[in-house]
């Protein structure tokens, strides 16, 4: 049940500290090369919050995490980073809903001409593209699965390398640099809509796991009042015509209240991998 549906009317009230911008951090993968969308989102938030909003876009989750830790950001949205949910300084703000559920999947993708690969077991000795070491789907999940096969993640593949973004992982597989990669289903499906030529060169060989959709997190230092107004704006987007247009462009259904339960399996995986000294941090 989508919790945001039960919210009352969105208060279009001026928020405190109108001159002080709300600092928003993003990895670009949500809005691949779509600067117009980012500025539309920013304008939407500014209008709703009655205060300036600034966006910081970084190539990698790592860059955004750093800015958050240095308190240079109030809110961050990292598509595929399992660490934000357990980070002591961060609060869960909202969970995006995708294809009717607050979940996304880890797709194992191979080149379109590779019709044999069914799962991770078939990729022993192959070239595998990781996203980055902070990525859940792009790094932890495939290593976790290798471990579950009873193999050592380092050395299972003949060669691995980092692409620093899920889109580039898809490119690496499409162009044949890597034999396979694991990517966020939301990103693959969204790209399928935006650039079908690229995703068309890849094939989803398997669905590795399902995780709670990466949430927006706020820094603990963000005031409760700001936290709540932003939360209400986000949760109200699905019922607001302008918000609906933006959500459609983002290929999302809307935002809902986050539940820690969504993220339990990811946290469990992180814990297990850390026990195996393989967190990559």
């Amino acid at each position, binding site marked *: 049940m989508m919790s945001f549906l039960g919210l009352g009317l969105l208060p279009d009230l001026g928020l405190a500290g109108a001159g002080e911008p709300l600092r928003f951090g993003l990895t670009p993968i949500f809005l691949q090369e779509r600067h117009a969308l980012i500025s539309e989102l920013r304008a939407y938030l500014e209008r709703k919050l009655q205060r300036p909003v600034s966006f910081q876009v970084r190539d990698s989750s790592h860059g955004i995490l750093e800015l958050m830790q240095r308190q240079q950001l109030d809110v961050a949205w990292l598509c595929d980073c399992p660490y934000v949910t357990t980070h002591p300084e961060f609060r869960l703000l909202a969970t995006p809903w995708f294809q009717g559920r607050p979940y996304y999947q880890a797709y194992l993708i191979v080149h379109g001409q590779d019709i044999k690969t069914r799962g991770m077991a078939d990729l022993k000795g192959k*070239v595998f*593209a990781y996203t980055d070491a902070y990525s859940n789907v792009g790094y932890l999940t495939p290593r976790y699965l290798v471990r579950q096969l009873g193999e050592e993640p380092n050395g299972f593949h003949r*060669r691995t*390398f980092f*692409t*620093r973004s899920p889109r580039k992982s898809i490119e*690496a597989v499409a*162009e*044949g*640099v890597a034999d396979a990669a694991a990517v966020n289903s939301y990103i693959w499906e969204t790209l399928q809509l935006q650039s079908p030529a690229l995703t068309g060169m890849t094939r989803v060989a398997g669905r590795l796991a399902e995780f709670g959709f990466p949430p927006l997190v706020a820094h603990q230092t963000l005031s409760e009042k700001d936290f709540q107004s932003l939360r209400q704006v986000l949760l109200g987007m699905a019922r607001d015509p302008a918000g609906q247009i933006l959500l459609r462009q983002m290929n999302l259904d809307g935002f809902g209240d986050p539940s820690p339960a969504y993220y339990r399996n990811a946290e469990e995986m992180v814990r297990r991998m850390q026990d195996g000294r393989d967190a990559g941090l």
Partner: protein
Amino acid sequence: MRAFDLSLRHKLPLWGGMLIVLTALLVTGSNLLQTRENIKRNMLARSEILGRAMISNLYDDLVNDDVWGAYERITAPARAEKRQPSFQIQSFIVLDENHAVFVSSEPRRHPLLTDLAGLGPDFARLKASLAQSRGHTRVVEGEHILLGIPVVAEGVTLGTLVVVHKADYYQPSYLRILKRTAWTTLIILLILLPISWFWGRRMAHPLVLLAGRMSDVGKGPPEPLPERTYPHEDELGQLFRVYDRMQRELRDKHAMERQMLKADRLAALGRLTAGIAHEINNPLGGLLTAVDTLKRHAGPDPVTRKVLPLLERGLIQIQDIVGALLVEARAKSRPLTAQDVEDVHTLLAQEARKRNVEWTWENTLSGEVPLPATLVRQLLINLLLNAVRAAGERGHVEARIAMRDGCLALHTRNDGRTIPPELMEHLFEPFTGGNEEGTGLGLWISYQIVQQLGGDIRADSREGWTAFSVSLPLGEA
């Protein structure tokens, strides 16, 4: 007829044309070969510059084991190449220290970690070459042209950037130049070939003319070459001058031979007539004496009286003719004076007036000239009488009498009909004359007088005028 027997008229232009075409082909060909090498080298040099520009970043990528970073770096120029080929680069391959593929811009063709030698024979050769390169760029040519640029920083080699070109990577640029050069050569040939043709024909023309004239030598006196056939001073010019000289000498010789033949004939004729005249003259004297005696002592027989004068007149006429034929040079005479010449003028002026002929008279003699007056006067009268008769009504006659080079020069000239050449040939023979008024002996006698005085007489007649020139060496009077 074989090719080498062709007339120079064709051979010179042909040879010239062939040489020009051959030269053009050789020069263009060698230029093109050179250009091809240059293009090949330039394009390789450009590829190397492009590759070297990427080296330091690739070094970082290799240090960081950043396959994707290196891939993005090498695909950017490779994509630009696909859009608009300028380097004619097929692909970039980054090799690690062990010459295995670190990443390639064509990953499906060159999969990661493939050993370089496994990519093909050219690559195997490159690998062998790189093993000894010590940080220098290596080029291998085969199916592909491979440029191996070591990825070096501060003396540490971490890998190699291989720039792969198709073996004919320079072909498009080369073909463009080839086309341009071909057009230029064609235009140059179109300009040079007609010039060569013209020059060859010009060169051959006098030679052909000369050859034609030379082959006519022997058939008669050779014709002179047209003026300025070949006015230059080279060997060919010398040849033409030699021909001219030879031609002149041959003509002179021919003329001299004819002159001598004529003189011989006239001399023989002179001897014959003189002999006959003598033989007639001796009995003629007796006959005249006999007639004279008869006149004085004969009876008054009317028949005799009637016949004797007839007989006498006939004999005297014979004596006149024989006398005319017997030009007696040794007959005693006084030396010629200017007055003698003026007397001739006076004598003939009447005849000229009668015929309405205009005179030009020029006598520069003075004092005595040691030549027999009677003979010279007779000569001058003969020539001028002829001239006045030939000039005709309202004609013009010129006479110049002067001393020249120790000789007496008589020169007459008149308008009137030109003497035809066939008549010129026998002009000085007796009874040849073109006019009906004279005895036909005037010129013959003139010739005899000149001969006996050891002089020279020439006639010239053309284009409506006729001239006689007499030159008499001075001697005893």
